[in-house]
């Protein structure tokens, strides 16, 4: 659905996006991660036909950006990293305005507006002035706007930025609903835990270059070659550490806040014998679990904090 081949954007001597190869399939929810200034927004703006690539090809729904931009625009919904507010409009006018911009005629237009307001849970605000809405509501209104013409692809640039926890959860639930509806979503965000919950694919970008791409599992495997266990025992943690270290399949053990962090050797897949051994030796187990895959860890390991 979205494909970029050697996509490059240069502003004079400044290379914003460098030889980017992206691939997003239909129905995917693709999380685009990177530090500030990494080139996420530039990439999304190129896909939204707002910027012309300096080099390379970007395809959206099979159409090439720059050559078939007019065919792409009806197929995408773009939410920028700021709320573009027509502060003198009411909510209904705002949505009708954009519906008209997408060529939706009356009386269908009014029906569509009511539908998207219902979907985004903004029906009660239909006659409210746009500039009177809270930030979270404005963001939901932005998403309502891009749903008016039922696009196949949604390009969302930091949709949860600056929102309070409740508004963030509301937006996340809304995006999950859109994912269920079969939309292809490309979303950039700094809130990695939410992306991990929402996206089936992620791409990590730094200094305009894609440093990793794939499913979250694949990314985790790439950054962490071995399994890490978190084992909590009642008392005698030091004796348990010594016991675990003596095992050949254990590569490294250390204690963090009374909990044992056990790194297994790379070839070990079945680690249930460790639990049995600890119980047999008289230790009382409180917790025994694999440390979950953490996108933040992956992000920190894959990026070097380099900003252009």
């Amino acid at each position, binding site marked *: 659905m979205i494909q970029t081949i050697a996509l490059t954007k240069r502003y004079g001597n400044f290379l914003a996006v460098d030889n980017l190869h992206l691939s997003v399939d239909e129905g995917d929810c693709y999380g685009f991660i990177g530090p500030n200034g990494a080139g996420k927004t530039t990439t999304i703006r190129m896909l939204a036909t707002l910027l012309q690539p300096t080099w390379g090809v970007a395809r959206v729904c099979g159409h090439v950006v720059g050559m078939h931009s007019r065919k792409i625009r009806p197929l995408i919904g773009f939410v920028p990293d700021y709320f573009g507010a*027509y502060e*003198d409009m009411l909510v209904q006018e705002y949505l009708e305005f954009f519906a*008209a911009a997408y060529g939706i005629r009356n009386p269908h237009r009014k029906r569509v507006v009511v539908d998207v307001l219902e979907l985004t849970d903004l029906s009660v605000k239909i006659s409210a002035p746009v500039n009177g809405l809270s930030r979270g509501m404005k963001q939901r209104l932005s998403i309502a706007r891009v749903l008016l013409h039922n696009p196949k692809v949604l390009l969302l640039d930091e949709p949860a930025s600056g929102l309070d926890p409740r508004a963030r959860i509301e937006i996340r639930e809304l995006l999950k609903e859109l994912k269920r509806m079969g939309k292809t979503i490309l979303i950039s965000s700094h809130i990695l835990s939410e992306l991990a919950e929402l996206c089936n694919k992620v791409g990590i970008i730094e200094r305009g270059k894609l440093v990793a791409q794939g499913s979250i599992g694949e990314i985790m495997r790439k950054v962490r070659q071995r399994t890490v266990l978190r084992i909590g025992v009642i008392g005698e943690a030091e004796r348990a550490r010594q016991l675990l270290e003596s095992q050949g399949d254990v590569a490294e053990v250390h204690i963090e806040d009374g909990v044992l962090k056990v790194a297994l050797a790379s070839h070990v897949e079945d680690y249930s014998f460790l639990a049995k051994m600890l119980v047999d030796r008289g230790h009382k187990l409180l917790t025994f679990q694999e440390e979950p895959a953490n996108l933040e860890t992956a992000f920190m390991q894959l990026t070097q904090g380099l900003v252009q």
Partner: protein
Amino acid sequence: MKLPEVNPIFLRVLTTSGRRSRHVWVRAGYLVVMLATLVVILLGELGSSLGGTAALAELGEKLFHAVSYAQLVLILMLAPIYTVGAITQERDSETFSVLLATPLSNLQIVLGSLLSRLFFVLAILFSTLPLFALLYYFGGFELRDVFLSYGIAATSATLTGSVAIAIGILYTGTRRVMVGFFLFIVAYLVGTYALDHNVLPLVTGGTHVAGSLDWINPVGAIQRTLAAGQAERPILADVTFGEFWVHYPEYGYLVYSSVLSLAIIIFAAVLVRRLARGYGRLARRITIGLGTVGGAALVAFGGYVLTSRLGTLQGLVVLAMTLGLVAVGIVFFQFKRHRKPHSVWDNPIAWRERTTRTATARRNLVQFLYILLSVLAVYAVFVMKVTHFRADDARLFVLVVAIVQTFVMLTVGATLAASCISYEREQGTLDIMLSTPITPRYFIVGKVLGIIRYLGLFLVMMLVVTLGSFLIARLPVEQYFGDLVPQAWVDRIKPSGGPILGGGGATWSNWPWISILHPLLIAGSAAAAMVTVGMTFSLKAKSSGMAAMYSALVVLGFSASITCCCGITAWIPLVGYAATLVSPFLAMYACIMPERFQEGYDAQGIWYDVYRVVGVHVGALVAAAGYALFTWFRMKAMVTTFDQQTRQKA
């Protein structure tokens, strides 16, 4: 290099803003205008003899007068532009709170902001010193006049800057403050002048001598400075405090503006941190309270003056009419503010321009004032008819109203268009629009159509004035509606008498339909052209404030230059008369007062009359077609370069 211990705000603005090429261009433009003023005066004097020192001194005096007026007008135009952003720009870039959190004192913040901006204005002002030095060799004026001329301009700039700072502290939004500030300055200059020269002499029955309040108006003050040698007045040492203001208004203005500036600076310094600390609501309440008390006092005073001058019944009627207008204004604004959702047109861009962007309080105010003044103009024509005013004066009045209406329409159209794209860019809505299927052609045409539809009301009000005046002139309205003018007014302003609004008889004009329809045609097409000029700036400029400023200057330059050029070419045989109509302002003159406009033509006879009638039709059509073509070509050029321009800004 170690920086000297001066106000850090002053230093920051000076070092950062001073690098901008804009200041050099403005300074160069200022000098060019001043030199052009000199050249125009000199060209006008080419025919006259320059022999002898007396003639040379006379020429020097004329040049000095022209340069002094030009200097004051330009400074009054430039000072708001430079000073208005002093606080509001800090607010916009969110550095104002940071500034307030520093150990800088209130006075340091206010003075630093004021003096840094004022520095550029004064630098421009004093760049003309060599020009005055050169003129001084001609003679005809004294060094005292030069000092006063500079003093009045400099204190006006300081007063303007102080007011800008105070407004910036009280209100937010650079664009809104800038437009409001300009309106305030124009209203102050026109209002105080009209109060002194027209209103007070009328309501006091001649007790008030026109010019007594010149000390509160810089234009009046400079007038009195330049006329100081012509009028007898008591020696300065002999006058009392009260007489000082009447006889020496030029010095009075220096004192008045300096004291007022100081008071405003202290007021701003007192408020600057208190408002930020949360006393804003209290300050607003005090402002509203003072406004209400002031309004009530004004109404009571107005009622007293009107009833004592016009009689109880008629005075109350006029007072009720005035209050009714105010009430209509309030209802008009409230109605617009609490509106129901409008249905969007199939062209959403045009709808947005016409319905929501122009429905702001500022646009409503402009529209309301335009309607109000147009209706008052028609009423004034009616009063003139009832009081048997002189025909030429009445028609001249209609001409002046039509010219002002045209200028306002051109300015509003251009400045509105100037922000139509740049403002979308600032608000972040342009990107969203560009990601929709809307094409550049659709976008540009939609914007132009929306603005032209907004200007439609202005054209309708022009028609109301010209057609209304024509009907008042032709119909015996005074017989049936004469009571709408208080008899006391009729007694007071009744002139010598004469035919009403007619050339030779009781007619409106030699060519009534020409005087009604052609001004609309020419002004409408010129306004469309100015809209495209404003849009061009909007597409290119970095901010809507800059675009609006450039557009307003272009309208001013266009109005002056096209009128000068057409005025010069008017005397070319055969084509000159038709060419005159290219200037919307001369077109008004040619259409509304044709017999006076043609006074310079020596040729007579039926064929020449035919030529003139044909000329005015051809001229109007050619002018309208020319503006329409210009509009079309500009739109086409904008459509072609739209993507490139918007991507450059992206």
